């Protein structure tokens, strides 16, 4: 893996005396600070050093530290008419690695969270099949299961930014996304159990909630890598993520990942339902609209520093980090710019590189305290390079709402404060 290669080469540099001299010493950053007086946090006994803490029976289902209480999903009130057909945002700026904790994974409902007793839930397969079938959740757990890590990105993620910089924080501009390990039954096995007729070309998953969400999905995709998931990150799905089962449609827009999945119809034509005509169609400048824009293109964002996570430590060693993903494959490379796209540096990838999953990147540098214009640019395994917002607008105009994967810019001022900006 490239990470290991980078590590061993930097170790060689470290062991070679010349590299040390031209590296850290040359910039003078090895001069460590000196405390004026002893630190009472060290010289005085703290309560947690003396008194007993909670026992193992105090937290049967553990929660984060009270000091992390600000790390929560957030709602943007003005976005939608109410909170029931609405969306909230994953706090990307507070996260590391590639896995989204279940309690922080953004939510998007069209008629609120359906609370379903799994004993009362059924999955039906009907339409162009030999044997229409009904499954209980117990039945589903008897099929072979798979574990896969995928990102789920709302088609509208970054949609508020089409006309320019609007929301000040990557949680709000890029937080309609999560990345978890799904456990589920390949949809192919369920369709094969029912016996798909030769005339079949499409499937229609449908949710059990009051919006009865439906989307037309080509049969090829359904037979390829779609999962009927029961678990996320090792535990049962959260109610807000479709408990007891949801559809997983790797690399494709989040709307298609039907939650509280109750039925899959097999047909020979797409259904052109509300969520693929009125919504999730992309209006272009000439008044015509793209339909069936399923794949989420390569995208990235710097999560730190960012407007909600300014630089507070002053000049010197500074870590830039962020996430990148592509619905078409893996992310072998991310470039980072400190000057608004004038010059680029290849970032360091760290952690697993999985198909249609989030990837974590880092770029470490010595900040001299001058203003910065930070950008990241993802390359995916097909050779696609994340475009600028302007490149996208040239082709699509400003009214397509969905699929905004343009390069994000954060302006950092002398104090380390970060702001969502556009550059040109």
């Amino acid at each position, binding site marked *: 893996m490239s990470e290991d290669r980078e590590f061993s080469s930097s170790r060689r540099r470290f062991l070679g005396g010349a590299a040390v001299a031209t590296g850290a010493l040359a910039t003078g950053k090895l001069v460590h600070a000196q405390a004026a007086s002893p630190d009472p946090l060290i010289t005085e006994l703290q309560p947690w050093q003396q008194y007993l803490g909670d026992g193992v029976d105090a937290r049967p289902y553990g929660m984060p530290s009270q000091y992390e209480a600000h790390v929560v999903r957030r709602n943007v009130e*003005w976005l939608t008419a109410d909170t029931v057909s609405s969306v909230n945002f994953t706090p990307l700026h507070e996260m590391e690695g590639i896995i989204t904790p279940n309690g922080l994974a953004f939510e998007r409902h069209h008629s609120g969270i359906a609370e379903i007793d799994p004993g009362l839930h059924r999955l039906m397969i009907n339409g162009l099949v030999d044997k229409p079938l009904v499954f209980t959740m117990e039945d589903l757990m*008897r099929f072979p299961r798979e574990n896969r890590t995928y990102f789920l990105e709302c088609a509208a993620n970054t949609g508020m930014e089409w006309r320019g910089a609007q929301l000040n924080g990557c949680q709000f501009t890029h937080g309609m996304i999560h990345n978890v390990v799904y456990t589920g039954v390949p949809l192919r096995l369920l369709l094969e159990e029912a016996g798909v007729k030769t005339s079949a070309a499409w499937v229609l998953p449908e949710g059990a909630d009051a919006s009865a969400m439906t989307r037309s999905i080509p049969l090829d995709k359904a037979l390829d890598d779609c999962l009927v998931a029961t678990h996320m990150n090792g535990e049962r799905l959260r109610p807000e993520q479709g408990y007891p089962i949801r559809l997983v449609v790797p690399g494709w827009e989040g709307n298609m990942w039907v939650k509280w999945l109750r039925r899959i119809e097999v047909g020979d034509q797409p259904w052109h339902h509300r969520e693929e005509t*009125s919504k999730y169609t992309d209006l272009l400048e000439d008044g015509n609209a793209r*339909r069936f824009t399923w794949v989420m293109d390569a995208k990235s964002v710097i999560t730190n520093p960012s407007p909600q996570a300014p630089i507070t430590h002053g000049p010197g060693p500074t870590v830039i980090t962020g996430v990148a993903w592509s619905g078409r494959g893996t992310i072998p490379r991310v470039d980072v710019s400190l000057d608004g*796209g004038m010059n680029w540096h290849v970032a360091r990838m760290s952690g697993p590189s999985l198909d249609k999953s989030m990837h974590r990147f880092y770029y470490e540098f010595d900040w001299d305290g001058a203003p910065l214009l930070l950008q990241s640019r993802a390359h995916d395994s097909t050779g696609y390079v994340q475009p600028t917002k302007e490149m996208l607008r040239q082709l699509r105009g400003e009214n397509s709402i969905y699929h905004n994967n343009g390069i994000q810019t954060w302006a950092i001022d002398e104090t380390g404060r970060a702001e969502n900006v556009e550059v040109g």
Partner: protein
Amino acid sequence: SREGGYGLGRAALPEEIAAWDIDIRPDGQGLPVGSGDVWTGEELYVTLCSSCHGDFGEAVGRWPMLSGGFGTLDAEDPVKTVGSYWPYISTVWDYVHRAMPYGAAQTLTDDEVYAITAYLLYLNNVVDDDFELSNETFAEVALTNEGGFFMDDRDDVEIPEFSQEPCMSDCAENIEITMRAAVLDVTPETEEETVEQAAVTEEDAPEAPAGPDP
């Protein structure tokens, strides 16, 4: 997969399929026998729909507009409604039947859905006020923007352009900030700040921030 399958699940009964298989297609597949006229639809609409969608589909507050917006799709601010944007009336029938009224889904009879759909067509100048929509007249009406959609063409139009080796150094003559989010100031603050600033924020409410419009 296993030869012959796993033998899991059981056969779905016809009554069960009938209860859940409610989807309608543009070619009319799935439409039940039934009918409803514009005036019956108006009465139902005023009672059940207008408190959110307005008496004439013009919408109340941020709830979806159902009528109007003709000729705006290539304008700076397009207004996408059943009449101006939706391609098929089957989608109206299907969606009203499956998910409306919001908060009381699947409470309308088939005839009521025909009537409300007829009224929505009337509000959008698609039919006259004496029109009766039924499973038989369904095929006679078409929405104006049916031809306004085309299959995702990113593979041809965008992928080649965005798959070039990118510039790495000295990529522009000059780069300047052209727009700032802080100027707009529509981002939610932390909870404490929101309470303190509530009065101010309401007065300075942004004109019309662009959202995903669910």
